[in-house]
């Protein structure tokens, strides 16, 4: 059991080369804030990047920031805020949901997990803002991709290739992101008392108008008290966020109110409360209950997800709320993650991706945490992994398909046939 704590990129490379020479797989961690997502990694040794820190370049007028991969996200966000800027993709903080402290996480982890938040609808995710990377592949080679400019089509975009790779392709040492001005102000319009179906219609209407709604979420009645210290308690809340310059925000809120005048009771929520609400939705606070009850993060086409949730509720008790106009469903179940049923319903209602972001270790070891891929795509992904990490020394098993192993059998869980079929 060795833990490497490199403070320079060259030391990261040395550690990976050591692991290669020893044929000793590494678990790659930053702060470990998202360590409970994915399959438990099967590695005896740890490569801890939390000492590889420092913002190496920040030019606000060029809208660009570079940092060592282990730099705390909180430190970078504070630095951006001091200059009126931000990561427009609003990276979420998984800490509270996973029973960890809030405010942890590194900038490398932001990219490796392809984080985003409610503004994903308008501004995209980490993948849409990464400009360049340096990394050490599982071959022990230090390589770079991209650069520090926004417009760049020179060679394959391996920077995007790192997004959502959960440390299984290469160890990031440096990242360069596009940053953007933070909005001068924001206001949220809440429609109160809608059922899921009417909320979906209202959100589609709002997103299809020229008011430039930057976030759209729906909290059903049973969850509306769980954000912003209960400020929305009592009725369901369908939330539409408008951001920008003061006069523009006021004008667009009026536009929305006209558009939605027959939708239900409309509340205007001013800047500070609006920010608090969206931060809590971003971090999935409604399910940050200190338990390990299964939580799914499901991405589908927005308009019909409420039908998927309804169909699921015919089968079992489930709590759900919606972000991204309904395109992101956060789903909490009682004990069994019901992976089969959830993914079957996702498929039935148009397809998409379901990730089991919270579950106890036994379930995570037994079930495909990430959406199983069809054969040719799974084969292509496996070939890509092999090109970056032929010896399988980086985070082995974290994203990989589940095999029927002894540990699964001894844990007393059983896999259904379709579960293993989808991941072949």
């Amino acid at each position, binding site marked *: 059991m060795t833990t490497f704590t490199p403070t320079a990129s060259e030391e990261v490379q040395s550690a990976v080369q050591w692991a290669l020479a*020893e044929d000793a797989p590494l678990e790659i961690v930053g702060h470990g804030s998202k360590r409970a997502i994915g399959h438990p990694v099967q590695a005896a040794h740890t490569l801890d990047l939390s000492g590889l820190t420092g913002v190496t370049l920040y030019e606000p007028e060029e809208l660009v920031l570079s940092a060592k991969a282990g730099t705390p996200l909180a430190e970078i966000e504070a630095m951006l805020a001091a200059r009126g800027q931000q990561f427009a993709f609003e990276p979420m903080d998984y800490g509270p949901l996973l029973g960890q402290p809030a405010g942890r996480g590194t900038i490398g982890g932001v990219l490796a997990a392809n984080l985003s938040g409610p503004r994903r609808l308008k501004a995209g995710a980490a993948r849409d803002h990464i400009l360049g990377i340096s990394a050490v592949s599982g071959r022990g080679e230090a390589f770079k991709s991209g650069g520090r400019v926004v*417009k760049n089509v020179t060679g394959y975009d391996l920077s*995007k290739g790192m997004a959502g790779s959960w440390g299984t392709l290469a160890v990031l040492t440096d990242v360069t992101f596009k940053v953007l*001005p933070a909005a001068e102000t924001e206001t949220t319009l809440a429609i109160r008392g809608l059922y899921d179906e009417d909320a979906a219609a209202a959100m589609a209407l709002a997103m299809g108008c*020229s008011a430039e709604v930057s976030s759209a979420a729906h909290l059903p009645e049973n969850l509306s008290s769980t954000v912003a210290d209960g400020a929305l308690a009592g009725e369901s809340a369908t939330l539409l966020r408008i951001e920008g310059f003061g006069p523009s925000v006021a004008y667009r809120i009026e536009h929305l109110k006209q558009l939605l005048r027959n939708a239900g009771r409309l509340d205007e929520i001013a800047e500070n409360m609006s920010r608090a609400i969206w931060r809590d939705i971003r971090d999935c606070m409604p399910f940050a209950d200190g338990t390990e009850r299964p939580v799914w993060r499901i991405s589908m086409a927005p308009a019909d997800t409420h039908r998927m949730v309804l169909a699921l509720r015919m089968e079992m008790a489930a709590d759900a709320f919606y972000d991204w106009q309904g395109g992101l469903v956060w789903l909490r179940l009682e004990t069994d993650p019901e992976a089969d049923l959830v993914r079957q319903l996702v498929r039935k209602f148009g397809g998409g991706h379901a990730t089991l972001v919270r579950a106890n270790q036994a379930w995570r070891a037994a079930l495909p945490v990430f959406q199983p891929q069809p054969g040719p795509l799974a084969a292509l992904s496996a070939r890509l992994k092999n090109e970056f990490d032929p010896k399988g020394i980086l985070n082995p098993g974290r994203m990989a398909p589940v095999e029927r192993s002894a540990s699964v059998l001894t844990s007393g869980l059983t896999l259904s046939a379709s579960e293993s079929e989808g991941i072949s």
Partner: protein
Amino acid sequence: MSGLAMPKPDADTIRRRAEIVADMRIIVPGEGVVDTVNEMRVFESDGLTAYRQLPLVVVLPETVAQVSRILKYCNERNVRVVPRGSGTSLSGGALPLEDAVLLVMSRFNRILEIDYPNRTVVAQPGVTNLGITNAVEGEGFYYAPDPSSQIACSIGGNVAENSGGVHCLKYGLTANNVLGIEMVLMNGDVVRLGGKHLDSEGYDLLGVMTGSEGLLGVVTEVTVRILKKPETARALLIGFPSSEQAGQCVADIIGAGIIPGGMEMMDGPAIRAAEDFVHAGYPLECEALLIVELDGPGVEVDHLIGRVEAIGNRNGATTCRISQSEQERLTFWAGRKAAFPAVGRISPDYYCMDGTIPRKELPKVLHGMRELSEKYGLGVANVFHAGDGNLHPLILYDANIPGELDKAEQFGADILRLCVRVGGVLTGEHGVGVEKRDLMPEMFNQIDLDQQMRVKCAFDPNHLLNPGKVFPQLRRCAELGRMHIHGGKLPFPDIPRF
């Protein structure tokens, strides 16, 4: 062709041409196979017309099954394939090879689905960029990326090149607006990436595919997001005595938290050529001209126009006009949009470059370009996507003068080296293709390039899809895959650990 080495044609493939053509006719019946020299002539080059080559045969499939069968066939028989959309590439991305099937996707020209509640369009790859906007503008929507070739270029080609346009500072590139694709791999596998949903699990192969210049797979379907048209748009035309002042104005606009819908700069030679051509009313005495377009709700646009005007004046603007009508806004743009043909009027030929630089380096790069211009004895005019640092120098030359094309190409290469030296890149939106292929080592070392080629190996291990593009030197995948593990049991005593 000025000394560009392409992969050595495979004599065996060329010898088997008749057989391959006959087999293609079985896979694509009807008029989908073109094999006479006269009919193939139209396909011999793309937008980079200095390079020409007749393909082995041209095939125009109509179904995904046909694409899959063609690629599988070629993969099994070791036949190279060059995919082509509308053929508007400015970097030779669709340049045919003598021993390669040219796979033309233009018959995939239908829009398959328009979904307003989810604000997505599903289109076949041969649909033009503008065709998507045309299909949804009746409902007030549009597709944001707008490369200047948008009337002709295909959405499949946009995915291959990660196309930009003048609005991408605010609305993103193709990569930020495509939600999903269906593609066929060289082995015939049909793979879907993403869809109408935003987040896709697994490796971001969609991100890797976008901008991969037809080397990884052939796109057979594209799902894009569409946006509601902004309520209004107005533009400012701001003239400066120097590019330094214009550059500082751009920095100050962004520093004030304003992200314009479009922000373009032209230098003196470009201003004068454009004005001479379209009479847009550009101030001829200026050395730098900015077009700043603000879009959104009327109240926001009016609010920001005032702030941008003040920033311009603070930076020494000598003229500042604000469009008072849609007609006037379009007039401001007319000169910029006609800049390329305008330069074409003052010079027999021009060569368009495409580097990106950190914006603050603009004065240094413009100065360097003037020196190079004197060194090579060729003129240069500049148009510049000022918001995102994407520079389009137009090198003026005369192809009829022996050696001048070579000189223009060397001048262009020197400009790109300069871009890389100041922290920029070789190409912002036109792609590497064959044009900038041999300059790749200016930006990447061999390890960087090898890792990119290994990605290629995961998709196309025999290097059959669009070979000779992007990478200056092809290495066999078996060789790239070899591991060189040093020593073994190395202690690495200097690594901190506990």
